[in-house]
């Protein structure tokens, strides 16, 4: 079978354990994230994959403590960054972490940049809130960052407003802002979804080269399996607030074990399927407030058996860090 996967560095940077984020509605509780556990090692690229509404973005926001708390509740779980549990920190403590140790790149760079400030102001502010450095030093670093992310003539661009830049450049500015304080981890929430394909590749290459230069970890949150197959070291597949399969990129792409992952991969267009109708998983994602009993995927699953509607599925270990949350498939494959 596969080689055992070795992360680039041994130490675990981020460890999320049994995270549950619920949102209180008027007469129901939406369990957006319902027991998610994963870890990110130093220097590693981890992808969280799933459809819209499966809880990926809420997971990312929870890591930064940005889940709006009156409707939202962190029902249980631990989020450890090195040795600190982020969930027990005060708001001030979190502000020290945000942008400084963990920063985030957003999906839509036009709305994630403040329209009334120049990009220079915004990047310099990112430095200013965490480090006491002089105006000149900030400006120098800001120009350095813009050069690093490949923006031509950065001195002139400092005085530009976001609407004066192209989409790809805006996303580069977002990346520069995220990098401003040399964070250990960047969370990229669908960083390429709003960009066209050539620019997507540029941004992904940019992130990769920066990552290699600085031993930074990146947590990609995406629904785009194309992105995952280019950048990921390890992959976590999410469905309805749960991790349903995890493993290295090759394990998940070559030997998917969970029916949901198989369905996702089968619905990708490829050369061998030319001219045929594309596969799609029947049904749609369950409402997080009214999830089916047992395995949340069983109403849509082609491999479902009677127990699936009753028993909550546990994680089954395929070895070498490859886990899947589907006991029926596991026992069937063991027998063969």
């Amino acid at each position: 079978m596969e080689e055992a996967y070795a992360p680039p560095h041994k130490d675990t940077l981020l460890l999320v354990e049994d995270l549950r984020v619920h949102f209180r509605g008027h007469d129901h509780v939406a369990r957006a994230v319902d027991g998610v556990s994963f870890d990110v090692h130093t220097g590693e690229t981890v992808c969280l994959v799933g459809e819209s509404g499966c809880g990926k973005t809420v997971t990312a926001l929870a890591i930064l403590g940005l889940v709006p708390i009156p409707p939202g509740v962190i029902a249980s779980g631990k989020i450890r960054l090195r040795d600190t549990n982020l969930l027990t920190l005060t708001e001030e403590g979190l502000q020290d972490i945000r942008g400084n140790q963990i920063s985030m790149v957003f999906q839509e760079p036009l709305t994630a940049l403040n329209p009334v400030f120049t990009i220079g102001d915004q990047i310099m502010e990112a430095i200013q809130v965490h480090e006491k450095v002089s105006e000149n030093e900030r400006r120098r670093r800001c120009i350095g960052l813009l050069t690093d992310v490949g923006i031509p003539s950065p001195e002139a661009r400092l005085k530009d407003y976001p609407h004066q830049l192209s989409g790809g450049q805006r996303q580069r500015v977002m990346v520069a802002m995220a990098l401003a304080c040399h964070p250990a981890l960047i969370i990229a929430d669908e960083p390429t979804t709003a960009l066209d394909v050539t620019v997507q590749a540029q941004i992904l290459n940019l992130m990769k080269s920066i990552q290699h230069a600085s031993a930074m970890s990146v947590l990609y949150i995406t629904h785009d399996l194309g992105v995952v197959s280019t950048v990921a070291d390890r992959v976590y597949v999410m469905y309805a607030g749960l991790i349903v399969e995890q493993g290295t990129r090759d394990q998940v792409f070559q030997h998917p074990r969970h029916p949901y992952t198989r369905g996702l991969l089968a619905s990708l267009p490829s050369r061998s399927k030319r001219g045929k109708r594309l596969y799609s998983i029947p049904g749609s994602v369950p409402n997080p407030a009214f999830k089916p009993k047992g395995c949340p995927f069983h109403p849509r699953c082609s491999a479902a058996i009677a127990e699936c509607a009753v028993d909550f599925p546990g994680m089954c270990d395929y070895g070498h860090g490859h886990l899947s949350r589907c006991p029926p498939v596991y026992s069937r494959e063991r027998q063969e």
Partner: protein
Amino acid sequence: MTNGPLILEAPLAPKQTRLEELWRLFKQNRLAIIGLFIFVLFFITAILGAVLTSGRDPLFDPALIRLQEKLLPPLSRPHVDALPPQEVPTFGRYLFGTDDLGRDVFSRMLQGAWVSLTVGFVAVGISVMVGIFMGGIAGYFGEHHLRWNHILGVTLLLAATVMGAMGNVWTSLGLLMAGGLCLSLFRLVKPYRKLRFTTAWLFKNAVSVDTLIMRMVDIMLCFPSFFLILTVVALLPASMYNIMIVIGLTSWMGTTRFVRAEFLSLREQDFVTAARALGIGNFRIIFRHMMPNAIAPVLVSSTIGIATAILTEAGLSFLGFGVPPPHATWGNILSGGKGFIFDAPWLTFIPGIAILIVVLCFNLFGEGLRDAMNPKLRER
């Protein structure tokens, strides 16, 4: 790092700052330009007026009484031989005539312009500051709840202030400490919270911040504000500063509503989340990141608010509740002139027309600004 192949994009939208764009759109509206022109003229006049009419020996003396020269029409010549040389008006003529005490109306109008300008700007400044603060808090922190111990604590602190003002030092100190204790109670008692049933009601949510502030706005809007101002001014000693403060504190509600509405939509925008994800503090986000995005409608409504404040001040002065008499304001020139409206109509018409023109120009300017800032109205 090498980025040779990465630099592919040829950028460069046409360079135009927001201000330039605003000016370009504003310029198309001729009435607004006239409004701006008169606004600038009024501004200069008021400042010059304040300089020229003050001091021990001013160029234009608004308080100089020449009883033998009373009720002269505009542009009439003074009886030079009957006046001591220092009492002859500066231009050798009474440009706007004289009033029933023979005072030069032109000088008095100059002095009054300064009153109108400062009252307008300071009152609106106060109302905009209060409005932005209240609206910002309501819009950003609206969903947070105040607990009963907050309310009790603030009440005690207020009581302490009142007691202190009445000179009762020890009661005041006691209330101060009780209030402080009440506000910090949550932190102190938190670990044992579940044990103390008698104090449990103190930690119940009483009211959300949004409800508190917006109901306050509703209540303030219920008062007929002119009569509220009249009552307050009647109770307070008459001075220009009291008038400014009272007008300011009774007109912040509109701004609060504007700002809150803007904030409710801005709060959901990505750049606010992005700012928080960078570790920027709440108040910095409110006042540095969100406020510049919400300021446009406030600016527009405040130019119109200046007009309203000038009008209110003129009304108060007309009724005799305004700036105390030796000082001239447009309102009290008007009210002094109303007794001679058939004999000396200029005493009524000159300040009346001045108020009309200034208020109109502020309205036109404000509307022009609104049209220039509102992309939906641009195409007209």
